[in-house]
């Protein structure tokens, strides 16, 4: 087949596409993932028993705000990286800045606490469960985001995979925050961040093989 004939073939018929296809494809995946993850987390782990009372405390909302901020920034990055020829953009730098602030505030919390209670402030009582459950909840979301990205056209595969992983981690951690009854910022700064970093790293690792499209 000559190139001319290929062009005539491709141009014949309907070439129209709906505007904002990239955003809509990713947003649909995120909305479904958020809903299903909430259902699964609440059905299997359950909401914390004192949810109503806890919701009166600022710490409850900070614990939710961290994953939601990670999710929002990762969505912005994934959206850009889903199109060829775009870089990660400001999202990565903002994410690093956010982490720096989070760790600085957490470190100040630890430093100002009495020496005897410092370890408990960081370790809490559910560190391992927190990391494992956030990472586990994020895996199906990561898979769904990979499927979505493959229908788009990422060309910077590890970056796109990391963004998808961080987005999956953010959604999973936000859902997990409704179950978790830890109430210190240092705990969030270490274990929530680790829980979200695992899918991000996994996404970057798996991307060269699994995000490849033809």
């Amino acid at each position, binding site marked *: 087949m000559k190139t001319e004939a290929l062009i005539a073939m491709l*141009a*014949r018929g*309907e*070439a*129209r596409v709906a*505007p904002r296809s*990239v955003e809509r494809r990713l947003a649909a995946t995120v909305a479904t993932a958020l809903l299903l993850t909430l259902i699964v987390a609440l059905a299997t782990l359950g909401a914390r028993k004192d949810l109503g009372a806890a919701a009166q405390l600022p710490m409850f909302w900070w614990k939710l705000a961290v994953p939601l901020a990670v999710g929002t920034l990762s969505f912005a990055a994934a959206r850009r990286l*889903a199109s*060829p020829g775009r870089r990660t953009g400001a999202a990565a730098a903002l994410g690093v800045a956010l982490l720096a602030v989070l760790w600085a505030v957490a470190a100040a919390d630890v430093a100002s606490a009495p020496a005897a209670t410092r370890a408990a402030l960081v370790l809490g009582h559910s560190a391992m469960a927190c990391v494992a459950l956030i990472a586990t909840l994020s895996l199906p979301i990561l898979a769904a985001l990979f499927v979505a990205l493959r229908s788009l056209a990422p060309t*910077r595969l590890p970056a796109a995979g990391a963004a998808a992983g961080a987005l999956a981690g953010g959604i999973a951690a936000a859902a997990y925050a409704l179950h978790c009854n830890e109430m210190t910022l240092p705990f969030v700064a270490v274990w929530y961040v680790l829980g979200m970093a695992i899918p991000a790293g996994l996404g970057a690792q798996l991307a060269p093989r699994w995000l490849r499209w033809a």
Partner: protein
Amino acid sequence: MEDVEETLRALLLLALTGDGAAYAAFLTQSGAHLRAYFRRRLVTSPNEVEDLVQETLLALHNRRHTYQTTQRLTPWLYAIARYKLVDLLRAQSPRRQVEVSLDDDEGASELLPADASPAESRRDLLKLLDTLPDRHRLPIVLVKLEGRSVAEAAAAAGMSEAAVKVGIHRGLKKLAVEASKRR
């Protein structure tokens, strides 16, 4: 260089709203730029050039929904070209890790030369099309090659109109996958 950006961008934006003539012009001009791009980079295997041009045109078509109207067009185009080039180089030397610059501005910062004289392609996409299952092949042949309407094609193939549309869409993606496999 700005002229190329403006021209191609205007053509694609028209094409995405359903202007078939603008789309043909977009693909033809893009093809000429892609040919020059690949000829420069495949000096040692010039007979791969036209195959790669065709594969990239197919990718531009299949991935046209990923062009975001706020972004520059030429970096989008050349990022897809580079992606296809890296694929080819990896296939040529699977043992060596091919190092290709991933700088997305690379293509855009060149003078965007064009080359309108195609070489012979080695791989025949029509033959590859014949290997696709009927649900993909028939809609493409009837609508995209013979120029029949979706309704006519549906009647001729005994499929629903929706199945014809899906068949074209999936079939062209399948064709791209098969083309990149058979190097």
